């Protein structure tokens, strides 16, 4: 296995990337999920990424019916699901065909010969059997009849053919557990609980798991199969779990409402990849959460604004096309100065675009996409775990400053999972909402009076004596009456702007490297992982390069300008045609160069590394540029749903 260095038998590799791929029906996501748990228990850091089939129920054995799960785990900090896999488990020809290109040269292929029938080969558009025609020469191939061995192992339990074959994924998992020297107990426990109602199934799956594990032991002696030990990573002690971005945002919103001491009203309309948040919150009613599936995105945001007006924390969520529809209503929330959190799970655009691909191309829309001078805070999550804190921050700003806030995430973060140190809710500082209970100007009520932060009072309908009218027409300072007078509009425009500009945003930190120097990579959102890893690798090679990752897109941290000016060169990697760089250039007049990628794929670490090298070799590309697109990159989830 010479050419896959980190699979050297005796060396303990720093990180390994494994991809489980099979037919939608083969239960690859389950296999991956359990392998992830065992990996976590083994103390490795990890990142995973699911790769669903494009269709909702694709016909069996077809290319577009392939489902895969990739995990990257290691003994150092892992921040991406990895560029190219070291190991590919292919449960059928289609799975092999679709995922082969991504496999590292010299990587290992584990294939179930039982599924490489003429019929399946045809479905996968293979003329000849790749396992036999030598086309896989540059990889190590381990092909054997997993189907048969599974059947064999579960015979005692007298399952039907179909049911018996369903245990294949556990057999495979067993083999994988052995390969990376993992304990089977947690999986046993999990299976017992999962099939509590049908002990036979539980036993059968366990038998398959053990059989796969046993096969590894016996087969080791010969062939390319070797056992590998990946050392645990040193991490803070504490309670951990894996979490996806969608889960983290949902939980963060719940925590945020808690800290604001408000019930939450979530007005949503299904859209990929945002729906997951609606689904999560719909199950949390007992946390004073109410979810409302509106007739469209406009009604969703308007209902959320209505709820905020009535005294709850209004939240709405969508993706690009749906966010576009909410623009007019955002303006009303800005004009009426009501709190609101708007979550945008970005996907490939424009238009319906690539609903299941990830992209960061809605930043312009978030910062600039409204009629009139309509300033609105924007926050971007860098990772699944980070999304939790970002959601809380969004709630804090919305309630504290009486303003809508846009929270940006994307398809990658929404679906990717990573270990998360379960936080103690008590460790967060509460920011209770205050409601006006009596007139605030002697006998007069001033709905548009302002506190030291520039925020107006929040007045709940139903409060005796505080009746007043608000709306989308320009309001008079203080009274909030309709006022078209020039001086007032000038003043109100300034006040709205000053309020947002003045939000207390934490100072920007440098997440890796010096606070000044030759080159800084400025990122935002889900590019954190690849940028961070690339910068780390470059620094290992002694490059003077730093990584700055911005969470507060608007307003920007006070110290960001001076900080960036301390570097000779700025490179801004984004999954768009260069949107954040516009904000930086406008605000700080710094020569931020874009490093763009719009293939619907996350950056590969290597791509960013290459751009850094290009800079230091000062060849073409020094000025940034665009990443070569290729089809062999980390795929994004493939559920087609626009």
């Amino acid at each position, binding site marked *: 296995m010479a050419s896959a260095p980190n699979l050297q038998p005796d060396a303990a590799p720093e990180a390994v990337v494994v991809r489980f791929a099979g037919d939608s029906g083969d239960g690859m996501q389950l296999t991956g999920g359990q392998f992830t748990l065992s990996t976590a228990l083994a103390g490795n850091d990890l990142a995973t990424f699911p790769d669903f089939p494009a269709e909702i129920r694709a016909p069996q054995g077809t290319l577009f019916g392939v489902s895969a799960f990739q995990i990257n785990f290691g003994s150092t900090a892992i921040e991406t699901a990895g560029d190219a896999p070291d190991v590919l488990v292919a449960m059928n020809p289609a799975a092999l065909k679709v995922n082969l290109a991504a496999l590292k040269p010299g990587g290992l292929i584990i294939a179930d010969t039982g599924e490489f029938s003429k019929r399946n080969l045809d479905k996968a558009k293979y003329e000849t059997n790749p396992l036999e025609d030598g086309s896989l020469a540059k990889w190590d191939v381990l092909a054997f009849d997993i189907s048969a061995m599974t059947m064999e192992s579960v015979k005692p339990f007298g399952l039907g053919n179909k049911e018996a074959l369903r245990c294949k994924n556990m057999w495979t998992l067993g083999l994988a557990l052995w390969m990376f020297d993992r304990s089977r107990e947690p999986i046993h426990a999990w299976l017992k609980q999962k099939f509590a109602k049908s002990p036979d199934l539980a036993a059968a799956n366990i038998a398959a798991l053990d059989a796969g594990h046993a096969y590894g032991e016996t087969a080791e002696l010969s062939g390319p199969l070797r056992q590998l030990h990946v050392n645990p990573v040193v991490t803070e002690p504490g309670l951990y779990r894996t979490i996806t971005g969608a889960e983290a945002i949902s*939980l963060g919103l719940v925590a945020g409402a808690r800290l604001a001491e408000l019930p939450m009203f979530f007005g949503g309309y299904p859209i990929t990849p945002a729906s997951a948040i609606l689904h999560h919150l719909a199950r949390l009613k007992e*946390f004073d959460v109410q979810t409302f599936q509106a007739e469209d995105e406009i009604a969703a945001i308007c209902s959320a604004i209505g709820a905020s007006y009535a005294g709850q924390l209004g939240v709405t969520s969508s993706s690009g096309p749906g966010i576009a529809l909410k623009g007019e209503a955002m303006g009303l929330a800005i004009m009426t100065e009501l709190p609101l959190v708007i979550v945008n799970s970005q996907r490939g655009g424009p238009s319906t675009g690539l609903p299941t691909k990830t992209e960061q191309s809605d930043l312009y829309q978030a910062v600039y996409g409204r009629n009139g001078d309509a300033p609105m805070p924007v926050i971007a999550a860098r990772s699944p775990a980070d999304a939790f804190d970002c959601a809380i921050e969004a709630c804090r700003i919305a309630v504290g400053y009486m303003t809508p806030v846009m929270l940006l995430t994307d398809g990658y973060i929404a679906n990717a999972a990573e270990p998360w140190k379960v936080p103690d809710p008590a460790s967060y500082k509460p920011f209770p909402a205050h409601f006006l209970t009596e007139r605030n100007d002697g006998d007069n009520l001033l709905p548009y009076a302002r506190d030291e932060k520039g925020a107006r009072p929040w007045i709940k309908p139903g409060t005796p004596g505080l009746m007043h009218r608000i709306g989308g027409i320009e309001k008079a300072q203080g009274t909030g009456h309709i006022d078209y007078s020039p001086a007032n509009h000038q003043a109100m425009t300034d006040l709205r702007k000053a309020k947002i500009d003045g939000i207390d945003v934490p100072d920007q930190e440098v997440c890796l490297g010096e606070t000044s120097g030759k080159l800084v990579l400025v990122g935002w959102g889900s590019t954190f992982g690849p940028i961070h890893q690339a910068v780390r690798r470059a620094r290992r090679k002694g490059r003077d390069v730093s990584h700055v990752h911005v969470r507060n897109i608007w307003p920007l941290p006070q110290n960001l300008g001076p900080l960036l000016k301390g570097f000779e060169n700025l490179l801004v990697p984004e999954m768009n045609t260069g949107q954040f760089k516009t904000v930086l250039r406008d605000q700080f007049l710094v020569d931020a160069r874009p490093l763009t990628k719009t293939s619907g794929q996350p950056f590969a670490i290597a791509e960013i590394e290459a751009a850094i090298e290009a800079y230091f070799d000062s060849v073409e590309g020094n000025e940034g540029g665009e990443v070569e697109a290729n089809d062999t990159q980390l795929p994004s989830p493939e559920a087609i749903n626009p």
Partner: protein
Amino acid sequence: MNDMTPVQTTIKDWETDQEVRWCPGCGDYAILKAVQRTLPQLGSDPANTVFVSGIGCSSRFPYYMETYGFHTIHGRAPAFVTGIKLANPALDVWMVTGDGDGMSIGGNHTMHILRRNLDVQILLFNNEIYGLTKGQYSPTSRIGTKSPSTPAGSVDRPAQPCAFALGSGARFVARGFDVSKNLPDVLKAAHAHKGAAFVEIFQNCIVYNKDVFNDFAAPKGAEDQQLWLEDGQPMLFAKGTKGLARDVANMTLKVVDVVDGDWQAADVMVHDVKNRALAHMLVELPFGSFPMALGVIYDDPRPAYDAVVAEDLARAREGKTANLAALLAKGQTWTVDGTVQDPV
């Protein structure tokens, strides 16, 4: 409507200090007065009352009501109302919209608030024109309406708000007009109905669509063209000299003459506000050969959306404790020393 302990108020308590800025002679003035006259009789509490509107002349209504008021954006009032009522079902919410606001840009939200049956009074001021934007024709304008956007006359077939409401699943449908003395009674019936109460109010835009309703809504002389419906009462009009009877063959209605008030003899049908088939016929009566059906056309309550949602939430929360720490630690967890917590 919503349950509340009656409060003593006078018409003055419902007037704001804001200068009313409709055109002199606009039908909106009469409607405003009717509403302000009605609320004290309902024992409503200004502090607990919310008027929500979209955009239009009609939608400026909230500014003139000394209650909580939200002048939102064009056509979306129903969505705001939904959020308000779901957040606080105890509020008594009135929605004011226009034929453009509620039937053109806002038609979809009008449909869904009726379908869901949110507990709110919906007043649609139908002047068959876009008043605020200076007189373009609207979806309710009659064919041939000359307007800045249809200089040669409009060709679109007009929408019928009450028919649309029924088709959308409305459980309360009523009609009135701006200067009608019966308007307060219609408003009271709407308020008494638990659930979405849809009231179409014909309103005279004296500037851009003057007197288009005069055939039945002229201040005087048109009474004979008004069929004021009352539950359990025969459907009589023209001072009792005419009535509506069953056309059995076609399963529809026909006009019959009533001699010396003997309506039984004339087979005049008795109005039943719970008869949905009848409601469909009444809202679609071709005016001219038939009178204009006014008053409460249909009133057959179903559980209100905000109420069922509240129950649903209560059920979901029942017996559950909201332990955030536990929620965060849910699922498959581990501690760095490697023991599993509650494997799922």
